[in-house]
């Protein structure tokens, strides 16, 4: 199991007027090989949770709220006083929101190499990894490697930033809204890229606001609301529970909404279709059917 969380809580600014319970007894499991989605409103505790997974936020001990908490990431116990952070960060790669803000080096190659250098990988190995990481995020090594990262376009910068994380060859990749602020084509490209990366990094956790992405790419989805997990579902189960979706103020994927509308108006399609491809094939079948009937 990649991630095991039991009864994890976190309070910001305890004992002050700014006190805020960001996590409230969270229990979650992420299995090896999952493409795990986390959805919920802004301030529902998603970011606090993923910061725990990389020990950027440590399990809170004061006030005493985590006495029976379990937080196990890639076999490392993070409730321990001094876990091996270096090993943890080697295993867990984290792509933050707007990761292009983390770029700093003179050249793309240098920037991508930063993580591997910090891990103490030797020089030849770094060069191999950097080359591989840049190609894997869909950029041309010979074209970009020696350019300044600040000269690239927004989408390219984001790719470089993601390359800077996968160069560490993590076992678990965490992404915090990887598509925020991109145009539709950029979004699609980044998601396809993540899907491709998943072939070498088996487990992916993705925080998202976008139901379309979650429906299309994730195999499991956890729903967060005010620091609590409202449940873990497969996408088809989740979006079949219209009442829950509505009560949490979430939306259906665009495709599902369209399918539901079509089904209601008498077109013979499954109202809980989740992917564009799925709806497309159903519509083609429907059209053929009509044509056959007409003949």
């Amino acid at each position: 199991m990649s991630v095991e969380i039991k009864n994890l809580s976190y309070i910001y600014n305890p004992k002050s007027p700014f006190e805020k319970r960001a996590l409230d007894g969270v229990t979650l499991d992420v299995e090896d090989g999952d493409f795990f989605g986390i959805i919920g409103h802004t301030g529902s505790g998603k970011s606090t949770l993923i910061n725990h997974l990389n020990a950027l936020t440590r399990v809170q001990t004061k006030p005493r709220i985590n006495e029976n908490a379990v937080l196990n990431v890639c076999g490392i116990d993070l409730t321990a006083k001094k876990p091996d952070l270096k090993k943890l960060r080697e295993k867990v790669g984290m792509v933050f929101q707007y990761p292009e803000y983390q770029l700093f080096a003179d050249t793309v190659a240098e920037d991508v190499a930063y993580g591997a250098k910090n891990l103490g990988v030797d020089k030849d190995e770094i060069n191999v990894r950097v080359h591989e990481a840049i190609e894997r995020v869909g950029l041309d090594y010979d074209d970009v490697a020696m350019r300044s990262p600040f000269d690239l376009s927004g989408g390219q910068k984001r790719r470089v930033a993601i390359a800077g994380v996968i160069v560490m060859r993590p076992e678990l990749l965490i992404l915090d809204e990887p598509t925020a602020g991109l145009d539709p084509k950029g979004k699609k490209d980044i998601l396809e890229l993540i899907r491709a990366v998943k072939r070498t990094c088996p487990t992916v956790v993705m925080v998202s606001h976008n139901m379309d992405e979650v429906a299309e790419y994730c195999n499991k989805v956890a729903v967060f609301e005010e620091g609590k997990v409202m449940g873990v579902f497969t996408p088809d189960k989740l979006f079949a529970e219209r009442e829950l979706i509505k009560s949490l103020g979430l939306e259906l994927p665009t495709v599902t909404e369209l399918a539901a509308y079509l089904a209601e108006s008498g077109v013979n399609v499954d109202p809980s279709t989740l992917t564009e491809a799925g709806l497309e094939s159903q519509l083609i079948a429907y059209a053929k059917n009509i044509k056959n009937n007409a003949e």
Partner: protein
Amino acid sequence: MKDISFGQVYPVESPIHRLDARAKLIITITYIVTIFFVDTFVVYGVVAVALLGVILLSRVPLRKVLSSVKVIFFLVVFTFVFTLLFNRGMGPEAEEAAYGYYIEFGPFVICGSGLINAGRLACRLFLLVLGPSLLTFTTTPMDLTAAIEHLLSPLKLLRLPIHELAMMMSLTLRLIPTIMEETEKIMNAQKARGACFDHGNIFKRAAALLPVLIPMFICSLKRAYELADAIDSRCYHGAKGRTKMKVMKYRVPDILAYLFSAALLFAVLVFAYNWWGWSWVAEFAVI
């Protein structure tokens, strides 16, 4: 980094929070002046009691106000020890006669006057920090800037750009928390890439900060350009012909507060100079 308490408003309703920012600023300055006239422990006690009363009235928890002293704690200890060790008082014989001890070792001396002076300095430093920190706990940076602008407005006659300075100040104050948040984000991102900011010697640490500083500069510059555009697009053109949304107006509590602070200053001056030669004042304020 979220725990920095200095300069953070404690948001409760209280008579102190409601006071006019100008009054609070002038009273704080008066308070600082007052403290410099105090030279005995008894009078420090009087000032401390007055301050305590104001803190209670402000409904900011005492512990929170006291925590602002943490910043200068080292300074206070340092001053105390040095004053104690190097103050020779009135000389060996007189000190021996007055306090009964005068201990000399090497270049250092411990004597009665030294101890008293060191204690007074410590009291002065503590009180000096507590007062202004109460001001920042009860006044938003915006109000404070408006007050400063108002109080400095006579300097406009000398063609100093007071409004622009105040604007710069309020923008700076406004952006401090934003930039801190940004720093934390970037530090986290680099930590996730295996960076380590608390290992190695000072040069190594400084070098380790580079991947944080460069993105910070870029973000700050970018934000400055965006802000300038936003300000321009709302037709901002400086102070000329600009009116205030919140017009500051003195009310009865502000006058009372002024009177209170003036009374405190007056009392302290009476204790310090004893103009009328009252014997009880002389006896009261011996140490």
